[in-house]
């Protein structure tokens, strides 16, 4: 999947993100594509869902990204008895001042890691998802804006595990991307075993970019050029999902927008100022899989379905 562009003349200024990517790659070994997708997701201003078995490095990745991007980080461990107020915060009565004081919850951070989000009840899940959608929290009649930038990296265990509440379709749609980390390859795993636990190493990372720079980067990403033939390509892909009998329903226009902005971020990470079809194909699985259900199994689309989809659409 890594098709590093050779468009030398188009390479932008030295990217702090090359360093971010490589340093994250030293923490999560052998997962360059996934790290790149995660970073692209954050640059595109979207929220990220990481789905995998416990112990695959989900939390470590989120932690490492927060450190590298210099973002204020908080972590919420979702459990079945977690309440919405545990996320958004509570007001407590201060006897000496005779008034209520709002204690902000862990959601008031720039990067929120929602660990094992599908272990909480739907009510609690939706409290977080509303915050994601609106960028603000309404608690006890008062609306409080969340810090900017605001990212959520949620992790979840595969839905068929015991004691989980799978996220409904509409809430899955709020995540720009969903990625799976998967088992490391043998060499990466050997290196991991030799070096010991990686999560502690993540704490030693220092930020490569200041939080104030991030909005400018996001703006640059949004301005990456998408030529008419490329827009046609994105539209054709989205349209193909709507006529493909293998899927229960097609991608929404919002998914089309998500696909394009993710492709922009991917192109920007490559140092390009224009989106090419490769960018679209690279981000398509992460953007589309959790939004499509297959007619045969009823589950989310598999990698093969996306490959087949790509192969059914000609590049304009």
């Amino acid at each position, binding site marked *: 999947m890594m*098709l590093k*562009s*050779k*468009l030398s*003349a*188009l390479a932008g200024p030295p990217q702090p993100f090359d360093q971010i990517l490589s340093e994250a790659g030293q923490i999560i070994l052998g997962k360059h594509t996934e790290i790149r997708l995660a970073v692209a997701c954050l640059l595109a201003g979207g929220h990220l869902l990481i789905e995998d078995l416990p112990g695959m490095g989900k939390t470590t990745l989120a932690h490492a990204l927060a450190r590298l991007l210099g973002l204020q980080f908080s972590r919420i461990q979702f459990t079945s008895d977690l309440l919405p107020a545990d996320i958004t915060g509570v007001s407590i009565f201060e006897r000496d001042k005779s008034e209520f004081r709002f204690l902000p919850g862990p959601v008031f951070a720039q990067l929120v890691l929602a660990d094992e989000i599908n272990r909480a009840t739907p009510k609690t899940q939706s409290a977080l998802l509303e915050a994601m959608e609106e960028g603000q929290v309404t608690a006890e009649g008062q609306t409080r804006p969340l810090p900017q930038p605001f990212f959520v990296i949620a992790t979840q265990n595969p839905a068929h595990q015991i004691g989980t509440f799978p996220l409904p379709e509409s809430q899955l749609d709020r995540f720009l991307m969903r990625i799976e980390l998967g088992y490391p390859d043998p060499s990466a795993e050997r290196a991991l075993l030799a070096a010991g636990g990686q999560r502690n190493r993540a704490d030693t990372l220092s930020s490569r970019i200041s939080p104030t720079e991030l909005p400018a980067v996001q703006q640059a990403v949004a301005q990456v*050029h*998408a*030529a008419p*033939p*490329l827009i046609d390509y994105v539209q054709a892909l989205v349209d*193909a999902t709507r*006529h*493909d*009998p293998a899927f229960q329903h097609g991608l929404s226009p919002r998914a089309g927008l998500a696909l394009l902005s993710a492709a922009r971020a991917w192109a920007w990470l490559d140092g390009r*100022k*224009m*989106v*090419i*079809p*490769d960018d679209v*194909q690279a981000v398509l699985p992460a953007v589309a899989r959790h939004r499509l259900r297959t007619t045969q199994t009823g589950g989310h689309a598999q990698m093969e379905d996306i490959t087949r989809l*790509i*192969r*059914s*659409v*000609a*590049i304009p």
Partner: protein
Amino acid sequence: MSTRADQALERQASPWLFASAVATAAPHVSHQAYWLSALSLLLLLWAVRLWWKDERLPGRWLLILLVVAGCAGILIEFRTLFGRDAGVAMLVVFMAMKLLELKSRRDAMVVVVLGYFLLLTHYLYSQSIPTGIWLLFALWLLTTTLIRLHGGPSNTGGASLRYAARLCLQAIPFMLVLYLLFPRISGPLWGLPSDAHAGMTGLSDSMSPGSISRLAQSADIAFRARFIDAPPAKHKLYWRGPVLENFDGTTWRPHTGQGAAAALDRMSPPVRYELTLEAHNQRWILALDAPVSLPEGIFLNAALAATQRQPVTERQRFALAASLDYRFNADEDPQTLQRNLSIPAQANPKTRALALGWRQTGLRPEEIIRKAQDLFAAEFTYTLQPPLLGPNGIDEFLFVTRRGFCEHYAGAFVFLMRAAGIPARVVTGYQGGELNPLDGHLVVRQSDAHAWAEVWLEGRGWLRVDPTASVSPARIETGIVDALAFGEPLPALVQLRADWLRNLRYRWEAVNNAWNQHILGYDPQRQRELLSRLGLPDTDWRSLATLMGIVCGILLAATTAWTLYQRPRIDPALRLWHKALRQLARRQVHCAPWETPMALAQRVREQHPELGEAFQNVVDAYLRVRYGDANDNLTPLRDAVARFEQ
């Protein structure tokens, strides 16, 4: 035998095939044997059931058994496997059987091609407007099915229907060119010689009690006439068919020998008209009495009946003229007169006695005719359902039953005249007709079939006497509907008394007539006329074929040009890119439509390392031009492609 996956028929294509099969075969139900239709329907339902339940298709041996049984049935029914009816029946049954064998796309193609062929066979039976409309619909459905078969999953039914409709519409100019310019052969384009003309209704060449009243119960159109001069009054419209001179006691038959040519004195100016005769499989032309100018190939016999050499097996058009008042054969040869006096020796003694009585009282012939007419006018009833008559039929009719249709009156009258010594004969044909106010055509139906009498008087020649006019004057003045009592078995179509219904019928018949005259009636002569009007006189089939080729070529070129013009302007960058791809294809590296340029470059680097860099340059330049930001400079790409080609 297993079918390869890429050849397998998609499940969703089957309903379209079933619908196409029904649409193409259905009109044959109206004329083929019931067991054939039932068998085909049964096979179709079986195929639908198998498809619905997703069950296994029948095995090969069962199919072979079915084919043998089907052929045997057709052989028993038609005594042959060839010819029009047997051939069509076979195609219909085989089409239904093929539906039980829909495994691969190839099988589906067989059904579609068979369907297109079956469409043509309908024209062997009917060329009416509803048939044409139905077949257009079937053509549309078949074409849609064909598109569905090649469409793939992203191709929806609605889109296929629209696409097929567009294709059919695009074929119209070609259809017109072929219709107008294809060398015409005179004779039926769709008719077949052997079994095509059986079962046509029309006047027969003999008359016995009941023969015309049976015919009069049909509403079929016998012919149409369009008067160029002012149309004559209805009671003068006698359309002459065969003249019957020989009587054997029950049946009247024409005289077969040749007589002298008819001598006709016109006593009124000719009335010109155009006659469009429906096929009736006989040689006579129903010309208006008395015909004075005949087109080439039509002859008048001694009894003034117009005939042609070949039976009328298809709709034909004639330009004719008639003189309504005439004197005919004032000097008849004695043989003919003798023949028209003979009556069977023994039969009908009472009638004979009556006529003899008139003759012996010394009445003049005119008075005898008047007496006979008065007799009929007195107490006879005009009816389509006369009682059956025995061996002395005329006696029985005149003295007992006194109920009859025109053939009874004409026969009895002629018998009376002959018995009274006046030469007389029966003339059959049609009387009257109905003027369609919408297109000005006079429509004459089988229900207007009629029989009247002709008597020969010294110095005046043959005179028409219509005894029916004495019994029921309304029959001659206004038509058969008013002449018969309510409840007589006249066809409903003829009886329409409600104005709006009658108007609807007029409209429908006018449209049909226009269709017959202008579309089906486009014969070699009309083709020549059209071409000479276009400035191409004296065309033979060779020049026609050339002309057709030229026009079709121009049409094709125009369509191609239009398509090319309509095609979105291809991006010059894309054209250069395709050029590079063709270069790659020569080295056996083919770019799939979904493959990105970068992925392709990667592949080229792996498969042909020596090309890797040159092609990467092409890719870089192409991506920059095509996907870059407002970069119209094609030079780098052109250079890169040129370098790559070296």
